[in-house]
């Protein structure tokens, strides 16, 4: 890359006491960040796909300390199949009082042999790709360990190097309404920072990353642990009570999964819109090109 091509020629020669002009290409992500990122991609992929398989064993969600088949008043979400007025089976997904026909995808979908089957999430979304609670649980808990150890490695290292404090955590002055609004508008226009301004995360990025790191993923992990009878006993029932009961914790676990998917969709969309080659390269080799400084008439 032409990292020095745009270095102005009239700058003083480099040496002690002089400041080198900032380059266009620099190391954006430390190796720890890059390794942890891709381990996270793998873990979250397996956790979601195996989690959907686990969910298929009992495709209902409840509020409160408990919830089972007979607890209709506590059930707020379910995926099932039933016969419609014409006597044809159809997949139905219910959220609160809203019922949606989801035949073909949720509730009633096709197995790999082409047969229609009654099942929450379809085989092509789950891991393993057939209903297998025992195997799905083993993969889920393996990657639960991986994502926790990986997350701790990243957090501890990044707190120590002040990466979290400097680059990820939202800065107070960035939270000013004018700045927030400016960022929202430029995002809506798909105008991303260029040049030196792109060397620091802006407020929407900081909010998205710190929200995921410090709210979403911890909620995911602690609601997951709230479903473990052994871990619950170790903490005297503190965890499920914190969330309002095990059935509620299971519901929140599912909702945080949905929010994680929303984050991933937006994150990947932004990578594509901001230049996938440069973005993905920076997460593999670390090298990132901030591009030329924006021209005056664009300011």
């Amino acid at each position, binding site marked *: 890359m032409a990292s020095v091509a745009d270095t102005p020629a009239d700058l003083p020669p480099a040496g002690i006491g002089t400041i080198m002009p900032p380059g266009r290409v620099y190391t954006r992500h430390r190796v720890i960040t890059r390794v942890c990122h891709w381990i996270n991609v793998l873990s979250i992929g397996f956790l979601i796909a195996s989690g959907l398989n686990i969910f298929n064993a*009992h495709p209902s969600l409840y509020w409160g300390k408990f919830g089972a088949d007979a607890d209709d008043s506590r059930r707020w979400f379910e995926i099932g199949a039933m016969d419609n007025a014409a006597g044809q089976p159809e997949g139905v997904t219910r959220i609160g009082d809203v019922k949606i026909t989801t035949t073909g995808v949720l509730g009633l979908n096709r197995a790999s042999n082409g047969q229609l089957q009654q099942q929450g999430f379809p085989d092509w979304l789950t891991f393993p790709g057939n209903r297998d609670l025992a195997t799905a649980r*083993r993969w889920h808990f393996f990657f639960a360990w991986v994502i926790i150890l990986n997350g701790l490695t990243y957090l501890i290292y990044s707190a120590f190097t002040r990466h979290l404090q400097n680059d990820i955590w939202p800065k107070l002055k960035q939270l000013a309404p004018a700045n927030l609004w400016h960022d929202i508008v430029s995002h809506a226009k798909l105008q991303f920072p260029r040049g030196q301004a792109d060397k620091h995360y802006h407020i929407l990025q900081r909010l998205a990353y710190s929200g995921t790191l410090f709210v979403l993923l911890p909620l995911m992990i602690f609601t997951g642990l709230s479903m473990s009878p052994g871990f619950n006993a170790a903490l005297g029932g503190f965890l499920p009570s914190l969330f309002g009961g095990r059935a509620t914790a299971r519901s929140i676990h599912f909702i945080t999964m949905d929010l994680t998917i929303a984050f991933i969709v937006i994150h990947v969309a932004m990578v594509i819109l901001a230049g996938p080659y440069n973005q993905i390269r920076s997460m593999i080799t670390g090298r990132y090109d901030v591009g030329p400084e924006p021209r005056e008439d664009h300011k």
Partner: protein
Amino acid sequence: MSLLTRRGLLGVGAGGLLVSGCDRLSASMGANSFVAKAESATYGWQRLIGGQTLAQEFTVADLSPIFKANGSTDPKDDGYRRHVDESFANWRLVVDGLVARPLSLSLADLRRLTARTQITRHDCVEGWSAIGQWTGPQLGPILKAAGLLPTAKYVVFHCADNYGGEISKGGAQSTGLYYESVDLTDAFHPQTIIATEMNGKPLTVAHGAPCRMRIERQLGYKQAKYVMRVEAVDSFAKMELGKGGYWEDRGYEWYAGI
């Protein structure tokens, strides 16, 4: 148009590769046995931080209106039917294996022992849960009375119900008789009881009459119903398919604390 089609084909192709790759991965014995090692990590970690801590107990106000009966709910086995017809008058709970003094306890014997009553949450591996009240003697004092030998490492619960003995993935044949096992930490846990009552009434057949295990720090499939025999062993490798329980023989974790 042709670009869209080509992209579409690429997408389908990539999706297909992903699905078939996943299928091969989930069928791989090596990959499965590798991820299964997480069970030891969970078991070790929970034993380290858990010790003998108690599972959360609830109040009568928290009871499930209907406690779901799962697994076997009406065993058809002749021996068991006879006990039901005789109101368990001739039923005995055998405590044997690696013990100095094997025991044979009648239902009346069990009821004479000091009972513990606990209102706990039953967490099924499928994802549902229910709160119930359980009453019965603790397992620990019974094992002490039988004189557990130092070689004993696990306690196995043999049940009266046959839940189906299909040929497993590996081709081995199990009898289909339900059984379960726990380590001595859970066997001597204060909340590990041989429950003879649920919600203040004698156990119904659907819930495991005349007695079922309550091992409150583990999932529902550990709560063996229709228990006939408590056997102390040093290994369950030669029992049924060797994994220490009916569901364990079918791929589920032996340590069901998660």
